[in-house]
């Protein structure tokens, strides 16, 4: 037997599942998320082992999707002192590193930065030569300032990463064990956004190191000593722990992604819309070839603009605990929610607040097995109000489906998450924009299952000069590069396929450059 364990940390619950070689569910366990995150992970791990009774040594791979890094950035806690080295002088001096950072975050990071010579043009020419002595001098200065992590960002490094790589080697010689982040491995075109992403990555290396060590410790303690450990990243694929320690920022938003991937897996769907209804929010995303579509716009993390890839999510304040009110403009839902206090504050439980769940219970399509519920309490709700509220819930979700779709055709919709009961089953067959609605078995474990089935990927995002290459040759090169990256990351070569190709010509320039982005994925070798 070779088993896999998947653990996913959510806002309210930490879930763990065990899958066998054929991806059958062998065990599942849900436990509250704890403030330190790690305790919740331990509880979930021990809980699923105990409840399923499997032999821990049968587990050959352990996948973790965690919120440690997100929390550290949002709360500004335990962040590393970061030395930022930008390569581009004399270009880029007009806007210094950290310019648009919130003051408290800037302070937490130490505000230590340098702009050195180096960097490239869009066509790969050097802006200026890399000056090794200059970099060595800055490295020594970083050392004297007690830097704990380094972020290096060169102009057009996605086109030509050589300067970033060489500068990284020099810093390593001077600072030895300090983690170094190279921006071209994190973000795409857009210097400030990529630099910001690299800085945030460097800032969470310490947090990630500790979290990963705690995870490894928990596995060992639980007797899971034959498992290869992985972390899930926010595109639904895996990182080895060595890789995750270098690129921890990639764990941000891995939760919604895991849920998406899990939903795709549970239904066998490759393309469609995933509606994940929780207690406070509904997250709607689109899967393309089984993976969440990526956001095309700059995303903010902890108040910082980055171009770090993130799943394209629509989030609305309409979950199981969302408050329902009558206003002059009609029924209004959320965005406030009673969240986990639903069993105290919900009207059906004897509380005073009318929530989406109360509406679903009053309308009669939802059933909840809880002796504290008394449906008599819902009789005070006006029939017409209940009907209008149901219509509103449905139209809110329909609106999201419509916004996330890429074409006018109806698409299959998968409904996961515990809050999913607020959608009346009778509308499944006529939900606007949906060709069908699927509510899979084990929907409440979609996230942990998504972690357990995660694949391995390779990615390329760079500008190709079309003076010496034809467009087709450039595309072919990019695809080959992405496939080889995936194999390097641990994918079984015969399972690797290209899942995404994106081409954006550079505007206002004669047609000699184009930006190509390719991603390839394959199954993990175990």
């Amino acid at each position, binding site marked *: 037997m070779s088993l896999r364990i998947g653990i996913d940390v959510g806002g309210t619950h930490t879930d763990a599942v065990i899958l066998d070689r054929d991806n059958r569910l062998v065990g599942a366990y849900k436990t509250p998320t704890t403030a330190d995150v790690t305790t919740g992970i331990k509880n979930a791990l021990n809980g699923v082992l105990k409840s399923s009774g499997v032999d821990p040594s049968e587990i050959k791979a352990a996948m973790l999707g965690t919120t440690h890094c997100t929390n550290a950035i949002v709360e500004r806690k335990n962040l590393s002192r970061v030395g930022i080295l930008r390569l581009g002088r004399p*270009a*880029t001096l*007009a806007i210094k590193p950290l310019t648009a950072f919130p003051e408290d975050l800037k302070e937490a990071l130490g505000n230590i930065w340098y702009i050195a010579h180096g960097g490239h043009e869009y066509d790969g020419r050097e802006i200026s030569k890399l000056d090794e002595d200059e970099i060595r001098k800055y490295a020594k200065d970083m050392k004297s300032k007690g830097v704990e992590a380094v972020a290096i960002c060169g*102009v057009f490094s996605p086109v030509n990463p050589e300067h970033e790589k060489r500068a990284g080697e020099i810093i390593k010689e001077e600072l030895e064990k300090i983690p170094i982040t190279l921006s071209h491995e994190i973000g795409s075109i857009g210097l400030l956004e990529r630099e910001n992403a690299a800085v945030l990555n460097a800032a969470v290396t310490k947090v990630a190191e500790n979290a990963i060590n705690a995870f490894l410790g928990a596995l060992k303690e639980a007797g899971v000593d034959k498992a290869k450990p992985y972390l899930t990243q926010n595109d639904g694929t895996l990182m080895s722990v060595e890789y995750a320690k270098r690129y921890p920022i990639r764990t941000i938003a891995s939760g919604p992604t895991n849920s998406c991937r899990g939903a795709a897996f549970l239904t066998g769907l490759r393309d469609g819309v995933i509606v994940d209804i929780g207690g406070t929010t509904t997250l709607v995303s689109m899967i393309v070839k089984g993976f969440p579509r990526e956001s095309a716009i700059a995303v903010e993390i902890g108040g910082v603009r980055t171009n770090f890839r993130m799943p394209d999510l629509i989030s609305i304040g309409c979950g199981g605990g969302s408050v329902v009110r009558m206003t002059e403009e009609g029924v209004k839902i959320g965005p406030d929610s009673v969240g986990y206090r639903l069993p105290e504050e919900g009207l059906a439980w004897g509380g005073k607040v009318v929530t989406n769940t109360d509406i679903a219970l009053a309308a009669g399509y939802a059933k909840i097995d809880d002796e504290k519920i008394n449906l008599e309490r819902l009789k005070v709700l006006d029939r017409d109000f209940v009907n209008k509220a149901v219509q509103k819930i449905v139209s809110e979700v329909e609106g999201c489906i*419509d916004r996330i779709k*890429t074409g006018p055709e109806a698409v299959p919709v998968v409904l996961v998450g515990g809050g999913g009961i607020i959608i009346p089953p009778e509308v499944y067959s006529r939900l606007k924009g949906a060709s069908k609605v699927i509510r899979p078995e084990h929907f409440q474990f979609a996230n942990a299952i998504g972690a357990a089935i995660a694949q391995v990927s390779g990615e390329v995002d760079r500008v190709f000069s079309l003076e010496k290459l034809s467009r087709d040759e450039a595309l072919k090169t990019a695809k080959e590069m992405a496939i080889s990256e995936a194999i390097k990351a641990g994918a079984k070569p015969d399972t690797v396929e290209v899942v995404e190709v994106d081409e954006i*010509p550079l*505007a206002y320039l004669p047609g000699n450059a184009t930006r190509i982005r390719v991603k390839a994925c394959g199954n993990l070798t175990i």
Partner: protein
Amino acid sequence: MRLLHRENIEDIAIGAAILGTGGGGDPYIGKLMAIDAIEEEGPVKLMDPSEVPDDALVVPTAMMGAPTVMIEKIPRGDEVLEALKMLERKFGKRALATISAEAGGLNSTIPLAVGARLHIPVVDGDGMGRAFPEIQMVTFHLHGIKASPMTMSDEKGNSVLLEAVDNHWVERLSRAVTVAMGGSAMIALYAMTGAQVKESAVHGTISLAESLGRSIREARAKKEDPIKKIMGMLNGFELFKGKVVDVKRRTVAGFARGEARFEGIDEYKGEELLIHFQNENLVAIRNGNIVASVPDLITVLETETALPITTEGLRYGYRATVLGIPCNEKWRTKKGLEVVGPRYFGYDIDYIPVEERMGRMKK
């Protein structure tokens, strides 16, 4: 004359994107440069065209090339000052003020950084009242002002002084230099007198951009719908309200061309709008009838936030309100239409002002 502070710059950047009619580049980098300059040097003076002495030298400053390059290879910061100084040396005279060549998009903000750094005022106006892709597409050109001598500078310290026989040659030659400089260059051109500024510029466009940005900011804070207010400020027309259902793109000679198709919602249910774009939005066709065309402004706003959507950002699912906004009268002359009319962009249609087209639709 009044002073512009950090908040004013934030507002201008948002309004400039509306005037960009889908193109003109993201004002984000220019905005940060202007804010940085103001924080180091103090607020920048905004001067009404009527306040400019007739014999003063006024020099427009701008960034030329691919916005994508500029978001990656951020300027050194003083190359645009170098371009301006080089032109001053050529004329043997100091510039009293600078002015934007293009109030739509990122070139609204570059002169503000220049003004703050050199402690010279920025004239409240520009050469387009919107965004256009080529150097001769400015109202300065319509008034016979020569783009050259033009100066171009890069971050390495290279500068080029360019003299050409006409403004079309300036466009051709400077485009080649821009590519050699790495895809973006800082430029100074169309040097003119105060009298020429008064006559040839589109007046008040920086203040207009600021008011547009402020309206959006305030309306968002109060959770009100700013689109009506924006329409009023621009004497614009609502061309359509709908959802993007299809976007087709292709690249022709360095320009991102394409079409976006919208399906009507609310009172436009069952109707369709098609927008043709080439970096900027150029022609809008509702149910087979042209409702607006270049040089009038066609601006796509996200219905919920009233924030402008660029042609690069257009994609399926956006709920958008499309506005048609009358361009400056100078573009509606015979010469104006020769330079930026639909035929220059390859559309074999006559230009009819948006207010006439909308008037006919109503009848």
